[in-house]
């Protein structure tokens, strides 16, 4: 699911293909906006970011390789644009991914989860959406992005690595730590054994 539309046109010189490519790209405006909103947390900034993304995407249409994932390509532009903006404002949010955070992520007691019969069902049953949202929002930026791109947007590790401009191993460890932190923050499973 959530893959590109069936026709992924070549954005080459001919204008029909160009128009088709642009129409395909525009189908992802909702998913780009949602992700932009997660990155900026401010609707007007998210709108600017998406608009900038399309501006760049349409200008750089020739660099898109037909047959590859158009949505992933757009997400890469979105994240690059967001990073450049953050750098312009001289607060690069990716540096939040510090050792302190990495160590903090390892604290939850997973042995408890291992003893509970079915933590998945328990979590699904006991976690209200607002609570889950809050827990996701509290994650450090780098972990939140990785978990979001994998579990909500369902991109591959390689695609996420390209978007976030980090090695594949870093993508996996961020997803891992992000998920475990989330689990640790969703309190319901703890009282049983902790």
């Amino acid at each position, binding site marked *: 699911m959530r893959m590109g539309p069936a026709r992924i046109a070549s954005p080459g010189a001919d204008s029909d293909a160009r128009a088709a490519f642009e129409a395909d790209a525009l189908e992802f405006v909702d998913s780009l906006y949602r992700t932009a909103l997660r990155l900026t947390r401010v609707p007007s900034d998210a709108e*600017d970011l998406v608009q900038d993304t399309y501006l760049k995407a349409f200008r750089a249409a020739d660099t898109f390789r037909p047959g590859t994932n158009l949505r992933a390509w757009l997400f890469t532009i979105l994240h690059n644009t967001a990073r450049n903006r953050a750098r312009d404002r001289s607060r690069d949010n990716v540096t939040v991914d510090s050792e302190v955070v990495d160590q903090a992520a390892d604290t939850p007691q997973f042995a408890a989860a291992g003893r509970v019969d079915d933590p998945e069902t328990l979590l699904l049953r006991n976690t209200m959406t607002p609570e889950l949202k809050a827990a996701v929002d509290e994650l450090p930026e780098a972990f939140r992005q990785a978990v979001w791109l994998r579990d909500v947007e369902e991109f591959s590790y390689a695609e996420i690595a390209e978007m976030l401009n980090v090695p594949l191993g870093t993508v996996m460890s961020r997803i891992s730590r992000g998920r475990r932190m989330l689990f640790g923050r969703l309190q319901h499973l703890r009282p049983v054994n902790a």
Partner: protein
Amino acid sequence: MPDCSRIDPLVTPFVDGELPQDEQQTLTQHITACPACRGKVMAERAIRSVMRTRRSELSGPPAPADLKARCTLLKSSSVPVAPPVKSEPSHVRSLRTSAWRSPLAPLAVAATLLLLAGVFLYQATRGSSRVLAAELTMDHEKCFRLNRLLGTHNSAEAVEAEMASGFDWNVQLPDEAELNLVGSRPCLSGEGKVAHIMYTYNGQPVSLFMLPRDTRASELVQVFGHRARIWSEGGRTFVLVARESASEMERMAALVRTTIR
């Protein structure tokens, strides 16, 4: 048995189904004996599952309609790209005042804009009456220009028959001296789903659009030098577009509302 620090990096790709067969086996064997690592697998699996299940609630609102419209206007194939615009698509407006004047070129531009917009904007129009009004005003301009070239004139019976067959809409059109029927076109906005009936009112072009299966609040919107009066009735939305004053728009709308059946 391999120690837990060597197993740990395998947990995430295992949960995501990205682990090669042999490593899968190593991990499976380890977690049957190790509750701590089994806990990590179960925790990650639970989070992955809850995130996927709640995806739509987590995702938040879709993109606002006017953002969609602005992004559509950024297409290289539509018009030269203007700087990002907040509410009024000013490059469209400037097109109307400059290039618009020569008889055929602007028509091509309008048609291109419309065709391209048509694929995408219908979704957007669902949200914003302003975008809907803008889109239909372009239709209004385009169809009247086309009609001036083609000189089409349809009878009321012909238009009524077309509405019945094309839109499943059994309508009796207003038969008023003030509103002269010009003709109808199935417009391309949103998959050809919009009925467009053209009139003249005191010699000036007036368009009545009907969107099936669409309801929205009554509104009078000003766009591109035109006014659009929007209302819904019986599960259909009607939009009247003309270059008239607000009071004339209300008068026409009332005329149409009382006569259309």
